[in-house]
């Protein structure tokens, strides 16, 4: 084989490899798209029976079809809460599929950030009461206005605060601090809960990640919350970071630009 033939052979192999690579990339993209479409359709279909369960249990719990004794009330309440968790899981799956299909819609407007935090805390009141948690919210002297998608940021705060609450022990303390630095709002959420093992922290924002120490005592949760949260914050032009020490607690910090349209 002469030099020219070797070059041609190498060129042929190289072209074949490029062809294979492009085919696989295309196949992978198609597969990803099909998976996302499947999740999107499946979740919509799941929502109808979940709604039926939610509506019917709520009517029974409210005594619309007769009085319940305490045991029945307690059992049905637990059933209702379980159904709510499935609805949350379906919503998370739908959000993830929308993120991956690049169809996660945003509607930015100017808001008072303090009010959004108050609303997020309000939505988690049941959990705060149930676990006897203390929320310390240090409000800034100057309350800046920011451009955000309110519902999405509410979802971010609910995810982060619910994590802090769920992974805190009874009577735990959750601190929320807001600081302003270089045209950015920095939001700190700190708990004194179970923390995340150091060797697992690099996986925190991956889909379906759940820390091993958490799995030992709390099996609920989709592991999708932080993936969605990070995506929303970055879409707003911000960043998120997490510092955690197992057994001592976790501090989440995220930034959002002040008064600039993303």
């Amino acid at each position, binding site marked *: 084989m002469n030099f020219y033939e070797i070059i041609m052979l190498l060129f042929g192999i190289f072209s074949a490899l490029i062809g294979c690579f492009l085919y696989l990339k295309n196949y992978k993209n198609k597969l990803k798209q099909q998976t996302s479409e499947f999740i999107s359709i499946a979740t919509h279909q799941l929502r*109808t029976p979940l709604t*039926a369960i939610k509506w019917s249990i709520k009517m029974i719990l409210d005594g619309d079809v007769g009085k319940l004794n305490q045991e029945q009330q307690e059992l049905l309440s637990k059933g209702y809460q379980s159904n709510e968790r499935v609805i949350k899981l379906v*919503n998370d799956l739908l959000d993830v599929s929308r993120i991956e299909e690049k169809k996660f819609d945003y509607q930015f407007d100017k808001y008072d950030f303090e009010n959004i935090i108050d609303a997020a805390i309000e939505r988690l009141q049941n959990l705060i009461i149930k676990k006897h948690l203390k929320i310390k919210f240090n409000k800034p002297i100057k309350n800046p206005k920011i451009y955000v998608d309110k519902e999405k940021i509410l979802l971010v705060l609910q995810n982060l605060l619910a994590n802090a609450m769920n992974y805190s022990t009874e009577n735990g303390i959750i601190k929320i601090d807001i600081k302003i630095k270089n045209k950015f709002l920095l939001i700190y959420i700190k708990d004194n809960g179970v923390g995340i093992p150091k060797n697992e922290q690099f996986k925190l924002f991956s889909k379906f990640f759940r820390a091993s120490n958490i799995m030992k005592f709390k099996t609920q949760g989709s592991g999708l919350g932080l993936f969605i949260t990070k995506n929303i914050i970055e879409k707003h032009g911000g960043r998120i970071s997490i510092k955690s020490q197992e057994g001592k607690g976790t501090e989440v910090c995220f930034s959002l630009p002040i008064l600039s349209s993303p």
Partner: protein
Amino acid sequence: MLNKQEIKILLVEDDNFLREICTKKLTKQGFIVYEAIDGEQALKKLEKVRPDIILLDIILPIIDGFEVLKQIRSHKDKKIQKTPIIILSNLGQKNDVDKAFTLGANNYLIKAHFTTDDILDKIKKELSL
């Protein structure tokens, strides 16, 4: 102010069980509920019943909720045209919600996020009860 016992609601929902639960809740509260299981039936019953308010699903057989909404808002009868419409759907993407409001919906509820109590509150609010 309208009296609850005289208020006619047209409920357009294709899922049998959801329709049954919703009707049960509203009837117990004293409303008169008329049911439609698809868009075509909804448009027929609309003229016959002349409801005070419509609860409308979007994904429906034959004619979908968006088309029903469009036809109501361009109806020749002014009273029917102005009937308050609350969308009850499990579609919750921004473009679906925006489309419904652009077509003239008065409110939009994602079914899995609300209970029949919430629906009741929205009806009362819409009709100033």
